[in-house]
């Protein structure tokens, strides 16, 4: 069955001099779904978005957006996409309303239509009170909301969100997520880039992990997690002797132990039967357990196993 792909990129290559930032990236985004492009800084996320939104040329590969070739029909592509970049691209001296109307006019809306749509968006994005103040007086969260509102002025069917919540406080991030979910409910096709595993996990239908200009994994959040591995059971004992005894009793099921915390980690396939089996073994060996917990793999684990680094390590290296 042919799937209805709104964004289709094949074999994207982009170099700056000797520095190859994209090395054969393939992406497909189905109509009405969200694809999250996940990766550390410098992985090629922004470069990919800039190419897909007609801002940047590329050295090899093909891109189609809504069936339009991105090179030959750039203007057609531009009339069906909306872009929200990393730095809020609004005119600081114009008011929120003026920004919206101006961009609406540049999207080819009639004056009356642009004004009506601006009013709608100001209400939807909770910016009515600030509508007639210059954008430079806005807070960071308000600016991002205005920026996203601007890219929605002509209700384009395809939206690119380049790290829409980077640098936002937790409350602004949640309100941004709510807005993005509403967009998805409305059937908009979205490509989102993020460094936050949680964001991709929460919002996206499909996740593509890129690192060093290459796609290193793709799938749903659940698929990626299952690739990394099974659920794990963590047991904490009261002292070193108990830990040692448990290790003996459980044998090869133990994959790691921590001698300071007196804890042991086991891989389990089926939570019900395996937990019961482990507990039975401990009870018959008369070893008491202080606490136990089952851990599902997180996207952090996915990231670790794919890139050999945790996201935190990547961030620290950059600092």
């Amino acid at each position: 069955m042919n799937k209805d792909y709104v964004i289709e990129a094949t074999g994207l290559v982009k170099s700056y001099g000797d520095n190859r930032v994209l090395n054969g990236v393939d992406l497909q985004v189905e109509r009405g779904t969200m694809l999250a492009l996940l990766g550390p800084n410098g992985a090629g996320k922004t470069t990919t978005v800039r190419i897909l939104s007609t801002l940047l040329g590329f050295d090899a590969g093909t891109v189609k957006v809504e069936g339009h070739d991105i090179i030959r029909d750039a203007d057609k592509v531009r009339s069906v996409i909306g872009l929200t970049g990393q730095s809020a691209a609004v005119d600081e001296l114009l008011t929120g309303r003026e920004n919206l109307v101006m961009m609406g006019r540049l999207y080819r809306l009639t004056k009356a239509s642009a004004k009506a749509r601006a009013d709608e968006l100001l209400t939807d994005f909770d910016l009515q009170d600030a509508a007639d103040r210059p954008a430079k007086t806005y807070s960071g969260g308000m600016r991002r909301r205005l920026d996203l509102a601007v890219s929605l002025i002509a209700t384009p069917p395809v939206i690119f969100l380049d790290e829409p919540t980077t640098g936002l406080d937790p409350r602004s991030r949640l309100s941004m997520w709510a807005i993005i979910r509403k967009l998805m409910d409305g059937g908009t096709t979205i490509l989102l880039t993020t460094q936050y595993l949680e964001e991709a996990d929460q919002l996206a239908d499909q996740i593509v992990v890129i690192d060093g200009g290459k796609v290193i994994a793709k799938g749903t959040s659940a698929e990626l997690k299952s690739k990394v591995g099974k659920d794990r059971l963590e047991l904490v004992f009261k002292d070193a002797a108990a830990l040692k005894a448990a290790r003996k009793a459980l044998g090869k099921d133990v994959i790691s132990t921590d001698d300071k915390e007196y804890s042991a980690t086991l891989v389990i396939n089926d939570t019900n039967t395996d937990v019961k089996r482990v507990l039975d073994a401990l009870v018959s060996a008369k070893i008491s357990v202080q606490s136990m917990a089952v851990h599902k793999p997180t996207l952090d684990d996915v990231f670790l196993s794919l890139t050999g680094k945790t996201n935190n390590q990547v961030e620290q290296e950059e600092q």
Partner: protein
Amino acid sequence: MATPLVFENRPKIIMALLDSWIMIKRSCTHILRNTDQLLGTFFQPIMFLVLFATVFGGAISKALPPGISYLDFLMAGIIIQTVAFGSTTTAVAVCNDLQKGIIDRFRSLPMNNLAVLNGHVVSDLLRNSISTVVMLLTGLIIGFRSHASALNWLAIVGLILLFTLAFSWLAAIVGVVAKSVEAVQWLTFVMIFPLTFASSAFVPTASMNSVLRVFAVNQPITQVVEAVRALILGTPVGNHVWLAVIWCLGILIVAIPLASWLFKRKSA
């Protein structure tokens, strides 16, 4: 998303003009909202005019033909100098747009991107017109008198606008090429300062040494200043008006395509 959207459906050329009109409105709004710059637009011309007239007036008037006051002589020069420096705000505005994310926004729209340049250049005409009017009014208050006919004034206005347009497009090139707003400031300064001072804007070229005079007499600012001055004083204009027009048109013919090409390349 309740209201259905209505899109313009007009020929491409009309849409391109509409884009430019939208960007002109944007840049003009910037001029009116940027209060610091607006104050400069009002007070810098007053300061220059009063300082030059009072500081140099006594010394230079001795070198002028009899019957012409330094203030009347100075008026054309100081207007052109102010307008030349004023055009550099185009460079700052263009550079600012390119540094900020907003240029990506414009480029992701189905609009004509050169409208961004048109907006800044045309709005510069507005700001420089304000400066010129302020300067003429200040001049009248401190004793400037002109015997120019209405037709002469029409020619003066036309020349000043043409000159502003030419220098704004030159400034647009600087704005596109420069890597930062600071770079724009010194680049335009280095470009405009020698051109205005090594000209007949403030002193008659007869008093300069021969090498400097050859440069001064043949460069565009002298031609424009001489043309405007003759029109203001009501003296014979000679070739100056035509040479000034040819210089300005020549600059435009080179600068508009060059600025547009560089802009497209830089923002790609």
